[in-house]
């Protein structure tokens, strides 16, 4: 069951990374719900952020299912709230270009540590990454004709990606799996640095 969940998650992520150039085209042609969902699923920074959140859920909760489910639910509510608060989103817009990469670096670093110690720090990091990227999604869907449907689309995509990350984090039960999770964390840090470079360049 666990290996099937991991395999499914990796297959979904592989398909999404291959489709990464099509986010904006899909949002135009597929309506508010699917368009918003595809925006999250195909924009590489959002994809990395929510998978990182899933990895954090697994690492922080030491893969204990009730704790992970609770954490995922809390983060889902946070993401919905942040995406729906469009007035807040507008205020954050100038800072978002730097907050997004910084959140990736922070989240990726905590995953690379792969430690269940200081769980509340891990939870706070996961919440920070979720809020920053959900605000970014709120900015993206702010001009949508159906913001409620778009917010639900964002939430659906968030659940999918966080669940994928959490199932991959279950690899950390074995020593090679722990290395793999740490390496994934370093990839997220690397993506954050790349995004920061693009933001600095302008």
């Amino acid at each position: 069951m666990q290996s099937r969940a991991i395999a499914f998650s990796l297959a979904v992520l592989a398909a999404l990374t291959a489709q990464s150039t099509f986010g904006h085209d899909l949002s135009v042609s597929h309506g508010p719900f699917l368009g918003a969902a595809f925006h999250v699923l195909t924009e590489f920074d959002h994809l990395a952020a929510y998978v990182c959140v899933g990895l954090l859920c697994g690492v922080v909760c030491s893969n204990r299912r009730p704790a992970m489910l609770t954490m995922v639910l809390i983060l889902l509510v946070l993401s919905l709230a942040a995406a729906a608060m469009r007035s807040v989103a507008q205020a954050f817009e100038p800072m978002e270009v730097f907050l997004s990469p910084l959140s990736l670096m922070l989240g990726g670093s905590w995953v690379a540590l792969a430690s269940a110690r200081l769980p509340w720090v891990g939870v706070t990091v996961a919440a920070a990454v979720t809020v920053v990227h959900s605000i970014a999604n709120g900015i993206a869907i702010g001009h949508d004709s159906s913001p409620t449907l778009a917010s639900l689309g964002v939430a659906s995509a968030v659940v999918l990606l966080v669940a994928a990350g959490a199932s991959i984090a279950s690899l950390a039960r074995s020593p090679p799996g722990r290395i793999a999770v740490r390496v994934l964390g370093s990839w997220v840090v690397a993506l954050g640095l790349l995004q920061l470079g693009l933001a600095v360049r302008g």
Partner: protein
Amino acid sequence: MIAGDFSGGFLHPITGLDHVVAMVAVGLWGAQLGAPAIWVLPITFPIIMAVGSFLGIVGVPLPSVDLAVALSGVVLGLAVATSARPPLIVSALLVGVFGLVHGYAHGTAMPLSGSPMAFGGGFVMATGLLHLSGILLGILMRWPTGVKVVRTIGMSIVLAALYSVVNLVAAMS
């Protein structure tokens, strides 16, 4: 023309001989050194590589990057061929320095149109998978003959990297 999306980024390290041999050597060397190097090196490299990419993207000048990239294969290949066992901090620093120049090369090649983040994700993943291939080759060291095979692979990496160095020097002169 490099595609400005995930596939372009993924292919960038894989289609460069100097990148391939160096990345595989990092994984192989980590496997030779064992824990904790087997996870420290594959974590250090992409992070420092991204710092190098950052420098390349923002336009910080770095001299002789192509030569440094080619030389990285020579040095890392020698480390594998001789089963060098420096302290962890030395191996991490060495890998970090080479990660910086490889990342700089990827960063300067990053197309700013299309989907640069997807391009970046592509070369980060390709690099990680090349490391993994080196680590998996390191499994051969469970057998006495495998130890010799791995060191021979290291020497092959040195020769392939020297080929790149010679071509570069010839092109520069």
